[in-house]
């Protein structure tokens, strides 16, 4: 065994005292093995990872108990100096977001050579040489130029490759990759995984691969540990399949009428900086989009981060005013507020933390005077029922619920005003795979029951396919391909669409 963690307990300090983050987790990694570690956000997986080389800041938390045996040495209680010698040399890390994990005020080169200079007696020149070598083996084509670049000059994928180069330059025994691809585009994710596999084989690394995406991890890991509430609860050997979304509703109710239609829709943002607010440029987030949605149908929109799909969603929901172009709501130019609702991406953010669930759900009813005051309570219970939530939720605050539950509440809020269309902006992407399916199922059921139309936005073409009647592929603010779901899936016309699909199938 390269690493053995036994009964690890880590506490964080907080205003309310000690909060346990890892409670008695045990884990083992063999030499040359890739171990996947999955779990919902806040289940303690990152804390576990940080504890290994004791990177938990003494101000924030403390390892309370347990042992971490690395190469037959217990790392707990090891003097800081010895730990420091291990970090970067024997145990390396890659973090989730390369844009924040790299220091913005130093060049990539400085940050990589620093590792060498810190651990080895080596001249600056040869450190530079080695660093460029490492950048090259991280498959950065223009390694010399990257070496002298500041992080902000590089794309996300390049930054993560640089991080990987930095983490592997001293050929460590253990590489801890904490959600290394989550912040990256789908198409880039696959390439990073490939790179990690390549390096693992070349350098004989052991990797602890942490992610919330079970599907992703199964492409690289041989064993997968599942973590929940600070404990490892079970091991899986292979990934779960993609969300077992309910069979897509057969679109019998073929309607000719458009409930929502956008023509040549554009939205530009100006970028300003400094005390004097000079205008620095324009971002064309949505740049000439034509789409339409018929009654009772679902329009799926798929695209990467930054493709403009969220802006499009907000335009459609009337949250942004278009720079150019028109949107027709049932043929009208003005939105009928209660008929067009939205479900958002982050269930942790979409509910006002200072309001009880009752108040959150009641708000729409009060605004549109939908229920008689005497009926409100009944109506709220019905809504909770529809999204399969217990009635006693009404009295509680959002932070008392899990992500999936919150998303159900958010859906309940959306349907509370009896809308015709719901625009769903990545409604499941921040949820666990197991829960994703259930939420999709719920959405489909509600569509049937309430005769809803959806605009469904996601970066994951598989999810979109599972729920949509028609699909539009968005890239750099434009729709590059749209049509019947099955047709797009089986015969993609654009190269980009194919890329999206192959990345998703990984």
């Amino acid at each position: 065994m390269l690493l053995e963690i036994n009964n690890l307990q880590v506490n964080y300090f907080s205003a309310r005292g000690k909060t346990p983050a890892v409670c008695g987790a045990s884990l083992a990694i063999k030499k040359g093995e890739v171990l996947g570690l999955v779990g919902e956000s806040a289940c303690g997986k990152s804390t576990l990872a940080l504890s290994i080389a004791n990177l938990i800041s003494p101000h924030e938390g403390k390892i309370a108990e347990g042992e971490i045996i690395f190469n037959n040495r217990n790392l707990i209680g090891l003097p800081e100096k010895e730990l420091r010698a291990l970090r970067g040399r024997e145990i390396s890390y890659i973090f989730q977001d390369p844009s924040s994990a790299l220091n913005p005020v130093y060049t990539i080169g400085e940050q990589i050579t620093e590792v060498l200079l810190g651990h080895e007696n080596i001249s600056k020149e040869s450190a530079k040489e080695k660093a460029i070598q490492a950048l090259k083996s991280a498959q950065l084509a223009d390694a010399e130029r990257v070496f002298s670049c500041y992080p902000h000059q590089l794309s996300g994928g390049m930054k993560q490759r640089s991080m990987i180069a930095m983490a592997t330059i001293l050929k460590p025994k253990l590489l801890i990759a904490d959600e290394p691809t989550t912040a990256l585009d789908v198409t880039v994710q696959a390439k990073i995984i490939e790179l990690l596999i390549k390096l693992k084989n070349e350098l004989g690394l052991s990797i602890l691969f942490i992610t919330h995406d079970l599907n992703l991890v199964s492409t690289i890991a041989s064993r997968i540990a599942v973590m929940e509430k600070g404990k490892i609860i079970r091991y899986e050997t292979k990934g779960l399949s993609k969300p077992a979304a309910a069979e897509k509703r057969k679109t019998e109710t073929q309607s000719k009428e458009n409930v929502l239609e956008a023509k040549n829709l554009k939205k530009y943002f100006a970028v300003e900086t400094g005390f004097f607010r000079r205008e620095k440029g324009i971002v064309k987030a949505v740049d000439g989009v034509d789409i339409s949605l018929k009654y009772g149908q679902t329009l799926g929109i798929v695209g990467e981060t930054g493709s403009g799909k969220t802006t499009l969603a907000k335009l459609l929901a009337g949250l942004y005013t278009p720079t150019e172009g028109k949107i027709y709501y049932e043929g009208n130019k003005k939105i009928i507020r209660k008929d067009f609702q939205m479900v958002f991406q982050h269930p942790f953010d979409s509910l006002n933390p200072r309001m009880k669930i009752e108040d959150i759900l009641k708000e729409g009813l009060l605004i549109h005077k939908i229920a008689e005051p005497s009926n409100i309570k009944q109506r709220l219970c019905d809504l909770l029922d529809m999204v399969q939530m217990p009635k006693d939720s009404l009295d509680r605050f959002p932070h008392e619920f899990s992500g999936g539950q919150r998303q159900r509440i958010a859906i309940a809020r959306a349907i509370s005003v009896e809308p015709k269309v719901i625009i769903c902006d990545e409604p499941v992407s921040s949820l666990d795979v197991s829960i994703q399916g259930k939420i999709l199922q719920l959405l489909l059921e509600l569509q049937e029951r309430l005769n809803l139309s959806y605009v469904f936005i996601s970066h994951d073409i598989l999810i979109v396919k599972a729920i949509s009647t028609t699909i539009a592929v968005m890239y750099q603010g434009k729709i590059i391909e749209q049509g019947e779901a099955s047709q797009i899936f089986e015969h993609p016309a654009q190269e980009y669409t194919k890329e999206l699909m192959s990345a998703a199938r990984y």
Partner: protein
Amino acid sequence: MFKNKLTLFGAIIVGALAIIAIFAPFISGHDPAAIDIQQALLAPSSAHLFGTDQLGRDLFSRIVYGARVSLVIGFVAVGISIVIGLAIGSIAGYYGGRVDSVLMRLVDIMLCFPSFFLILALVAILEPNIIIIMVVIGATSWMGPARLIRAEILSLKEREFIQAAKVLGASDFRIITRHLIPNGIGPILVNAVLGIAAAILIESSLSFLGIGVQPPSPSWGNILMEGKSTLGVCWWLLLFPGVAIFITVMGYNLLGEGLRQRYVVRDK
């Protein structure tokens, strides 16, 4: 919240001052306005805890009553600045675009004035009475709160629950009052607590220049101002009001700092 002892200390000072100000008549023991020339300039004794001033008034009771004046100035001035700041900041942040740039331009203009100079000029030109002083301090210190509130609202505005409320069709007023303000109040509270301390200091500086709250109403600033001319002899006239200001400002700052740790420096 009071885990930090300094914050607790600050809170105790602030609380004690509030009690002193509210119950001034019961605490002071003397009429702060009672002139008795025979008793002028007495050093502290059991009869006059802090001694007496040039007109023979009891300094302790003047300082106790002065707490009222000084705290009222602090609270009202900050109240005014927060109300203006809230209005301008939330309108600018919420509506954005043209409204935002015009209002923020106004904020920039106001920020270019050295605020103490502006306060001084306005108070001197208008009239140095307590109401004018409070209004002027308030009217020249709302830019901080306005910027803060705007920034808070800009970040809150992008939060999904605000968007959700909009999609539900909530009115702007409802969104600002029910969703934005309750969630953004923390930093404003911190700003208010620190602002009170600053306002008390500004009043004392104005008094030093002769245009603070004017006698006979006692403010710590004008008591200190009167004591200034006795420097070197009647030490109590200079020491006690100065210490009163010092402790108060310290208390509010420690409390504000504690609140800041809680509300502004968000832990991960």
